[in-house]
């Protein structure tokens, strides 16, 4: 499938650079993946569903937090597809719908991009409010004011290292909470 090979050739180098610590490549990768994920989930659960955006965000968090499970000697698109499919199955399972999600070629995920965000008030927004104050304000500094983690740490009077640990923990907590929300 030539289209998919092309996707693989664009995404895999980004993933490898992201694993090497290149945050620009990481951002670019997640941005592209987000558009593919939106198209994929919209085709599976309905274009209007507000849950599409929740699923996109949940999967992007998983891609981010589970990067260790990507083996650099393997192609990237099947790995990303496996994560997306898992999240879709989990989504149906949590709603007690025993829908079968066929095991397709990774091309199913990369068939079409969809850049139009579905919802602003996502589950993630609500869960953010449940984080302890210190963690939430760190995320807000980084998100709203566009500060780097170092700048945000300086502003709150903590070390950059502890701010980084705190950010990572918050993301882990959010990812977990997002899953447990609708159990």
């Amino acid at each position: 499938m030539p289209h998919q090979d092309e996707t693989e050739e664009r995404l895999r180098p980004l993933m490898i650079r992201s694993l090497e610590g290149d945050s620009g490549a990481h951002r670019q990768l997640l941005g592209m993946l987000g558009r593919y994920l939106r198209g994929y989930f919209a085709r599976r659960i309905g274009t209007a569903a507000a849950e599409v955006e929740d699923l996109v965000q949940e999967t992007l968090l998983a891609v981010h937090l589970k990067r260790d499970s990507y083996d650099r000697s393997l192609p990237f698109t099947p790995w990303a597809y496996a994560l997306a499919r898992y999240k879709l199955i989990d989504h149906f399972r949590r709603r007690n719908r025993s829908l079968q999600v066929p095991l397709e070629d990774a091309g199913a995920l990369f068939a079409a991009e969809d850049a139009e965000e579905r919802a602003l008030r996502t589950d993630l927004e609500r869960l953010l409010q449940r984080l302890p104050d210190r963690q939430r304000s760190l995320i807000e500094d980084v998100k709203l004011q566009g500060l780097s983690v170092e700048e945000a740490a300086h502003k709150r009077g903590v070390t950059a290292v502890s701010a980084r640990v705190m950010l990572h923990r918050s993301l882990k907590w959010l990812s977990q909470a997002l899953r447990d929300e609708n159990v």
Partner: protein
Amino acid sequence: MRTSDLIDILARDVRPTPPGAANRKLLAALAAGGLITFAIVGLVLRCQPLLAAAQQPWFWMKAAYTGLLTIAGAVIVRRLSVPGSRVGAAPLAATLVILAMLGLGVDQILSAAQAGRVALWLGHTWKICSPLILLLAMPIYACLIAAIRGLAPTRPALTGAAAGFAAGALAATLYGLHCPEQAAPFVATWYTLGIGAATALGAIAGRRLLRW
């Protein structure tokens, strides 16, 4: 929150990951869990006289059996935790090893005198062997599960079963340092049952523990 905002945040949480992180996590978990179980075997159960035992073929027969199963189990766990990789021939290899052990057991039973057959099968410790292996597997299983949770198993029950199998096989290997039983029928039955129990419980627990 907008998805683009989320991506901005995630881009600030990027740290370099050296290649082979998954392998290292799983091996470290096996080592940590194995160390706990080894300590329990050494301090609570006590090892048998190892210098004498190591000169006997039966000691190595047991070690080879459970050691090979440990390797197969670890390979299966690794592949199930890394999306996009095929499980491959490891389950088949494990099945063949178990069948070979069963064959060896049956052969020994058949070539023994009728009167001695039950003793060959039950040994002196058949009642405690499987339960002990199951107990000894628990620390290893716990460590493995903690490591797998950081990876991306897309089939929780199956991955839990593989983790239980690997933990059971490693526990059985370490238990062999204590267990003085020598007969192949004994090992083929009670060791295998202990590993099987760990596999079954591992699947049940994995269903819950390995969701993400």
